[in-house]
């Protein structure tokens, strides 16, 4: 476990999480959720939990992002708060 990698990816993770909540464009927010999913998958793969990383990559960066984008298309694209 290389701690330099970990620190960088963790900083990116926290920044992504804060941005995903603050952005007003909902389509961009669902894309940023996908980025968050990729980053946490990288963290898990580096820690040795390859099964969990595989599942997170398939579900989070694949199906979950598509479903969120499909839902955003059904409602407004601009957040109202």
């Amino acid at each position, binding site marked *: *476990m290389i701690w330099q990698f970990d620190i960088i990816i963790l900083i990116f993770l926290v920044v992504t999480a804060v941005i995903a909540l603050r952005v007003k464009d909902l389509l961009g927010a669902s894309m940023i959720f996908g980025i968050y999913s990729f980053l946490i998958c990288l963290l898990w793969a580096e820690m040795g939990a*390859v*099964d969990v990383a*595989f*599942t997170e990559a398939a579900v989070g960066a*694949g*199906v979950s992002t598509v*479903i969120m984008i*499909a839902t955003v298309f*059904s409602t407004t694209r601009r957040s109202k708060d």
Partner: protein
Amino acid sequence: MIIVGSLLLSATKDFPDWGDQDSPANDGPVSSFYIEKTEEKTKVPNMVTAVLADYRGYDTMFETVVIFIAGIGIIAVLRTYGNNDSTPKNQVGDEGAGLLAKITCSLILPFIQLFALYVVAHGHHSPGGGFQGGVMLGASYILLALAYGLARAKSCFSEKRTLVFAVVGIIIYVGWGVLCLIMGKEFLNYSALDSILPGGVEMARSHSMLAVEIGVALTVTAVMFSMFSNLSTKGRLDKGL
């Protein structure tokens, strides 16, 4: 919020080190049993799949049922059977994405599905297993729907077929447990199937894990595609994304 965050962060100083020999995860009796005995009792090198499908197979069965209930819940909440009286008369039609996306997807889709089936079948020796392969197979159908339009994906995997797949997956899992009951031992005790599966007792557990993972993969595939098709068309299932 910052106060709670800093309190939590200061509590992480008490955690054992990474890969510590003395930490309870590495040294406790349960995990030592799993780490030492899995290979000789089940002949399955991937410990995660062995714990998931054999030692804790009861939990995995209910996880599959929860996924099935989620799919059914989305169908129950969203699905409408209106008589097409709110759609405009001259619809553009559902052609999906542009030509380049269609050609790329048609080139890569068979490989995605083949790899998904490989991941399901090799869950014992490589990372993967039923759930990951099922999600990839469902995602391949979602890719088909995105590239060619929902009508084409529905002709391959209609709504009735998704429900049949989901139910058959659960019946395979529960039925395997009942088969173990019939052969004499407890529910989901795979060593009871020694007489009808080839190989010794260990190979019976390995083959049973494969059968159970196939059940999980079928259910997950069907539920992923059904969730996507219901959520992207608001329940009407007519025109895709």
